[in-house]
């Protein structure tokens, strides 16, 4: 069965702190894809990253970084030196090879206080 768990419902930090959002997934496939999306207060869903199961290299994009560990079935997202504009709901999602359907986590609401 496919499942994505984002155990942190809400995280609140002060600006400039680093914050990590956890994502744990379950799948029986050996080939799968993991995603992160951001939903700011304005409501749109913004694609952040896509990772396939054969690529365990960590990814860094500016202040954002992602740590993919197959051994623990996790795909965690870290924001370094957080800013108020990072406040949003962040979703982790999974799709198995050849499957158009995304399985979504419940989302983590991130609040960055000035």
């Amino acid at each position: 069965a496919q499942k994505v768990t984002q155990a942190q419902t809400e995280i609140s930090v002060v600006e400039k702190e680093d914050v990590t959002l956890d994502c744990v997934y379950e799948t029986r496939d050996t080939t799968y894809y993991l995603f992160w999306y951001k939903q700011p207060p304005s409501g749109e869903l913004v694609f952040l990253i896509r990772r396939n199961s054969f690529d365990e290299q960590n990814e860094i994009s500016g202040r954002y970084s992602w740590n993919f560990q197959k051994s623990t079935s996790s795909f965690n997202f870290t924001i370094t030196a957080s800013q108020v504009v990072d406040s949003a709901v962040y979703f982790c999602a999974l799709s198995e090879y050849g499957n158009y359907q995304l399985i979504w986590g419940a989302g983590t609401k991130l609040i960055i206080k000035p």
Partner: protein
Amino acid sequence: DTAVSQTPKYLVTQMGNDKSIKCEQNLGHDTMYWYKQDSKKFLKIMFSYNNKELIINETVPNRFSPKSPDKAHLNLHINSLELGDSAVYFCASSPPGTANTEAFFGQGTRLTVV
């Protein structure tokens, strides 16, 4: 310039009415989706079309009917609206070639049934 556009952005209507939400993408994508996001932010796929062919049809009431007149459009028609249909509906599209590519979302349509 909007890549995936939905209309209307807000829709308030009475129970029992029939309404449609329109979606258009100008990205040249082959696959389009409808998602429902409930009040707890949980995202669930409803339908997906690939090259105008229905490929995902999740368990939704048959009051919901998607229509894809061409690859760039996927409209959602809802008959006999109920209070429980109140949610945000997102249209999305993904690039051609294979499944498992990232999806690009519209701004969402907030439907309120009173």
